[in-house]
């Protein structure tokens, strides 16, 4: 994917546009993210990429591969190893007119930056009555299913979604990865951009740049009439597989990829739930206080009389993320989804 002069000149806030289109080819999510970063860097000279090992190494997941070489160490560089420092300096840079795109190396390593994210990134605009925008994109590889050592597989989305002031996105496929990341970087609101690690190597045939549905919209990725199954990031694939397995048993499952966790797309989800009268949400994070709680609560509030059954949460168990040999028992599977559907009273 070459970035030509035209791209630099014309690319603007709208995602996609600008870069000369590539021929359709299989693209992994890491490559799609890499392309989004490259095109964003080319489109706006205020875009900066920094973090731990994102420069020479290209990131431990190779999402930033080649960018330092292409844009130079003044645009893409390795920072000292300190996450609060990375986020805190990004705040200052954004106040100074930059659009920093920073990486937290693994999900649990965003925690040292928690105060900067929650007390400043989320609140600066409100605190200053809109005078100060913080167009920062915080990229966080998240979730498990990679046989990782402790602290490398957390699903921390609930911490961010329960913080007013943050926009939280998570792509489940390469096309969305490209399109949503470009939109995030172009947004004047700070975005927590959560990348599902286990889907980094997922391939899709794409021509780049690609523009998918805008952020803040959920997408129906498979139509169905009996059950609405809500998923995001790593569990979209599980949801689709569960829908396929359900179909074999005569169950028609509609799968919705939420894409944006905050704000929640009530419209798309309510429309589906009013049609099916049953819904479930699937995520890797533990259940208690997980993101699924918000989904279940708000969808029930808005659609109570349309529901034939309680909204189910098919999730990780309420335990710390386990060691690799226990991972398979922890993660929600197709079977767990189908079992959950069976707990409903289908006569209602």
């Amino acid at each position, binding site marked *: 994917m070459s970035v030509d002069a035209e791209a630099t000149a014309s690319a603007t806030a709208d995602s996609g546009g600008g870069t000369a289109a590539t021929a359709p080819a299989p693209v992994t999510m890491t490559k799609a993210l890499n392309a989004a970063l490259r095109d964003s860097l080319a489109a706006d000279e205020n875009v900066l990429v920094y973090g731990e090992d994102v420069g020479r190494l290209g990131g431990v997941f190779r999402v930033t591969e080649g960018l330092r070489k292409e844009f130079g160490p003044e645009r893409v560089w390795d920072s000292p190893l300190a996450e609060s420092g990375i986020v805190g300096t990004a705040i200052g840079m954004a106040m100074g007119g930059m659009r920093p795109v920073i990486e937290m190396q693994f999900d649990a390593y965003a925690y040292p930056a928690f105060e900067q994210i929650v007390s400043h990134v989320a609140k600066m605009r409100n605190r*200053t009555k809109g005078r100060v925008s913080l167009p920062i994109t915080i990229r966080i590889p998240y979730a498990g299913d990679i046989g990782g050592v402790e602290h490398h597989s957390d699903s921390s989305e609930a911490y961010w979604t329960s913080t007013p002031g943050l926009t939280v996105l998570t792509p489940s496929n390469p096309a969305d990865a490209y399109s949503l990341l470009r939109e995030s970087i172009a947004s004047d609101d700070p975005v927590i951009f959560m990348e599902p690690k286990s889907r980094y190597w997922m391939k899709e045939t794409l021509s780049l740049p690609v523009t998918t549905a805008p952020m803040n919209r959920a997408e129906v990725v498979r139509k169905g009439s009996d059950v609405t199954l809500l998923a995001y990031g790593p569990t979209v694939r599980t949801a689709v597989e569960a829908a396929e397995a359900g179909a074999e048993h005569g169950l028609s499952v509609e799968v919705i990829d939420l894409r944006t966790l905050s704000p929640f797309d009530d419209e798309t989800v309510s429309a589906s739930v009013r049609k099916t009268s049953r819904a479930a949400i699937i995520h890797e994070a533990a259940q208690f206080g997980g993101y699924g709680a918000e989904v279940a609560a708000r969808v029930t509030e808005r659609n109570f009389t349309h529901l034939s059954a309680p909204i189910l949460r098919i999730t990780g168990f309420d335990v710390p993320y386990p060691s690799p040999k226990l991972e398979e028992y922890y993660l929600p599977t197709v079977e767990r989804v189908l079992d959950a559907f069976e707990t409903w009273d289908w006569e209602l």
Partner: protein
Amino acid sequence: MTIDVPPSTGRALPQLQPISFIGPDSSPTDAPTEGLSIPSDRTLLGLYRQMVHVRRFEAQVTHLTRQGRLATYPSAAGQEACEVGATTALAPNDWLFPTYRDSASLLTRGVPVAEILAAFRGDWHCGFDPHEYHTSPAATPLATQTLHATGFAMAAKLKGTDAATLTFLGDGASSEGDTHEAFNFASVWQTPTVFVLQNNQYAISTPLREQSNATMLADRAAGYGMPGIRVDGNDVAAVFAAVATALERGRNGEGPTLIECLTYRMESHTNSDDPTKYRDAEEVEHWKQFDPITRLETYLRSTGVLDDAGFDEITASAEELAASVRDAMNDEAVIDPSELFAHVYASPRASLGEQQKILEAELAAAGRA
């Protein structure tokens, strides 16, 4: 192993005696000056004037809290030389990153009285437009702003502007992890950042000796390959000279500087604090002899820069400032409840619109809309 030993430039620990030009007895000191020069008479007079102003301002605001008209106010009384000396050294394009303690610096930076008060009387969190005054919102979470100042300076460096940044932090805040990270990032990136550490010897009730075992906090700098100096924080001449020079170093691409200003918090932490629990009246009394304002006043009178007429004019204008504080308080802003929702996101959210309707209905029902 004789390999890979980097050069020792800038490594030495600096002077122990704080840099000072004008001593507690108002005469020139023989303390180290580390190559700095005393500011001009004109500058000193301006610094004096501004110190008198900020002290009057803080006395007036503290009085308002005693009357119960303002909830909480952290006064910097006793620290005027740090506040005014450092802030005055800034160029207009530089950015200031203050804390809750530094209203005096906001005033010095030109933020209008009503906007400073807006935060304290609960109108809105920040109170002023940061871009207008090149001044960040006063930070409440300790030490966090040191990183903002570093990042802003990095942006300025990358954009090639000549802006430098100055941030205040306290002796207590120096213990937070963020302070360390800011020192390190600033030095690795060689950003034009000046860290003005107001060592007023207390973090609320916690005395310095329980905060740090360092001989002096300026000694931290050596561990980052950054110059660190200690200044008599009650000598505004020294503070101004040290900060102005450090800002200049930053603009010249020579990186950040840590300046420890040794001073003392004369008032309680805020008006809701009870300092008798943790320090003696004698200690406070003792520090009166180091007062930054009377010290400079006597000096300026002795050099003939200040006379009775000048003094009276400054006093009168400080009284006007105090009056403007009272006026501002009488001019109570009415806050529109829709402000709750207006600035959370750049792009509006439907769900916030729904919530705003709930609130509007509540207010209408209560006959308040």
